[in-house]
């Protein structure tokens, strides 16, 4: 009898979870890494989407229709991501999907979207996602190529000649490594060391010792938390003073928290969101940035992160496409996304086209230095 009561209670609870949106609502799916090692990406992204959904519905929706965002957590696991994608496409019948949060997951599911003819606007930064262009796949973060270019410009200016790279063996790291190995020699530097570490590794002193022996002028570390924090700490523990660049994957306060004092002096490219108050008042992104920071801080507290911005831009761009074309059909959304030009988002100013599904370039980045536990725009 007790078991039966439990089953009934569970059934009632599950049924009650059905949200109260009309049948006419525009259904937008989202697959985000809300939990797991990439939760620093997925959690702010999910918060942002929920916040924007409420915001836009309160203002009357888009084209007079309410917006329903269905978010699935892939737990940073590529298999759960595949299952979530199937669920959104087969069961929920969404018009467009935002996410996933990580590059590896995006690459795993992108084929499903081209065969289902539903657009996917990813919040992951690997270049492979949008080059070669898949007609149905877009992304909003600045590309790893732009980040590498920004770093190399800074290195050139500081007169470094020999560079070492230390990358993580996951999708994001591998993609970055590919771009680094291409651009470092192409820009006139000598690549003296190419080390790799695993996503769950807790000790990179071996790799750093090898790099030290190779005599690099600077090290570029490409990964997402917690690896780069370990690298930063190991570097301090080994007493290495070689300048260390990070990728934009660690442009969040969690990195500073994990790396502690070892984060001081590290340089990385970041979107303008991390240092809003240092952005000049006449910059086209300023109003968007300030509005987002204000709304997010009011709803969730002062934990703003540039990664939430990726989801913000994805949502804003999709809304723009829907209202531009007056239609929320998947193929129309896709066509209209490609027509968007000069749209100011939190990560940069977007101009999409049939050949360019990323919409940004290096100007979307600013170089920042970590000083006193905060972000300081470098000049």
């Amino acid at each position, binding site marked *: 009898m007790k078991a039966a009561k439990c089953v009934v209670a*569970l059934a009632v*609870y*599950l049924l009650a*979870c059905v949200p109260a949106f009309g049948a006419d609502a525009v259904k937008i799916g989202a697959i985000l890494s809300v*939990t797991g090692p990439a939760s620093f990406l997925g959690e702010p992204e999910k918060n942002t989407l929920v916040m924007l959904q409420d915001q836009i519905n309160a203002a009357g929706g888009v084209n007079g229709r309410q917006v329903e965002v269905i978010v699935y*957590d892939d737990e940073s*696991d*590529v*298999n759960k991501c*595949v*299952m979530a994608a*199937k*669920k959104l496409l*087969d*069961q929920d019948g969404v018009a467009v999907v935002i996410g996933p949060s990580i*590059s*590896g*997951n995006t*690459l*795993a*599911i992108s*084929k499903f979207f081209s065969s289902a003819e539903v657009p996917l606007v990813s919040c992951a930064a690997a270049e492979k996602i949008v080059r070669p262009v898949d007609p149905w796949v877009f992304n909003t973060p600045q590309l790893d190529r732009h980040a590498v270019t920004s770093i190399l410009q800074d290195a050139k200016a500081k007169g470094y000649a020999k560079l070492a790279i230390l990358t993580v*063996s*996951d*999708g994001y790291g*591998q993609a970055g490594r590919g771009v680094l190995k291409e651009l470092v020699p192409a820009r006139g530097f000598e690549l003296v060391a190419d080390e790799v570490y*695993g*996503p769950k590794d807790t000790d990179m002193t071996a790799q750093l010792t090898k790099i030290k022996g190779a005599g690099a002028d600077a090290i570029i570390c490409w990964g997402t938390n917690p690896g780069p924090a370990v690298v930063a700490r190991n570097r301090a523990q080994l007493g290495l003073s070689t300048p260390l660049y990070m990728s934009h994957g660690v442009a969040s306060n969690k990195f500073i928290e994990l790396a502690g004092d070892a984060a001081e002096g590290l340089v990385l490219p970041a979107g303008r969101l991390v240092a809003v108050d240092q952005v000049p008042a006449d910059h086209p992104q300023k109003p968007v940035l300030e509005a987002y920071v204000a709304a997010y801080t009011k709803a969730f507290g002062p934990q703003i992160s540039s990664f939430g911005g990726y989801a913000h831009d994805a949502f804003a761009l999709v809304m723009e496409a829907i209202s531009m074309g007056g239609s929320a059909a998947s193929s129309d959304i896709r066509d209209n996304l490609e027509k968007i030009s000069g749209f100011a988002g939190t990560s940069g100013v977007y101009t999409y086209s049939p050949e360019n599904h990323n919409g940004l370039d290096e100007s979307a980045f600013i170089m920042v230095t970590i000083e006193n536990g905060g972000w300081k725009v470098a000049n």
Partner: protein
Amino acid sequence: MIWLAAFFGVLMLAPTLLPNNYYLTILILGCLHAMNAVGLCLLVGHAGQISLGHAGFYGLGAYTTSYLSATVGLSVGLSMLAGVGLTVVVAVLVGLPSLKLKGHYLAMATLGFGIILSILFTETVDITGGPSGFVGIPRLTLFGWELRKDVTLFRLVALVLCLFVWLSFNLLHSRVGRALRALHTSERAAEAMGVDIANYKLLVFVLSAAFSGFAGVLYAHYLTFIAPSSFGFMFSVELIVMVVLGGMVSVPGAIVGAFFVTVLPEFLRAFENVEVLLFGAILVLCMMFLPDGMAGGWRRLLDWGKARLSGASHG
């Protein structure tokens, strides 16, 4: 055998009852997991050996066929055969030295083997695509005929599962089955009676590995995408949970256990993070209180029911 035919019938009808394609995905995965579980049940319940690395065989079959069909360009049929074949060869190579060990030594050896494979899948990026997985595996194509619809593929998977169950039953009711029961009860006695225990242990080990390898091959060509995280230690543990839940000696129990473990995450979506805890709890509680698993519990329930009825009629 009747229940096997009935089971097959139910499976064939099932797709028509499901509201959409997503549930079909779950059903197919359940059948694939059941294939793994049936093999493991033979090994753990009947031959009395433990394997904590069976996910490795699942992955070996999947990656071999993916690499051969997508990268090398062999036909899907050949790749599948090669996938199962390689799994069998590796099982023999690993089984020969390992099965001499007992108890926790065997557990550790199989665990170590499973983890080494898992690391290989993750690190040999050029062959396997690394942690981001292997994309672009061709769909299942038999004799030139591509199984485009998921339903057709499901019917094939269900057929193979029933075939494996039939094979297992035949095995258990044959001389091999009797030898296994003897060796499970007492290895020394069996050996004294002339039962070649080393051979039989190896046979069951390789057979269960072959079941897993075959399931892996089907999995790869169904999902057209595989990643190392499906073939790690956690999956090996899930397989053990399936077998334990089903009652270690019961083949139908293993199938029920497999479906239960496959479907459970769907219900737990509302309660995040409880999955891992639940599996641990199931393992501990089942082993302590319900060593016969659900099959045993079911049997005891039936017996209790019968006793009550006959007791009632006797007044």
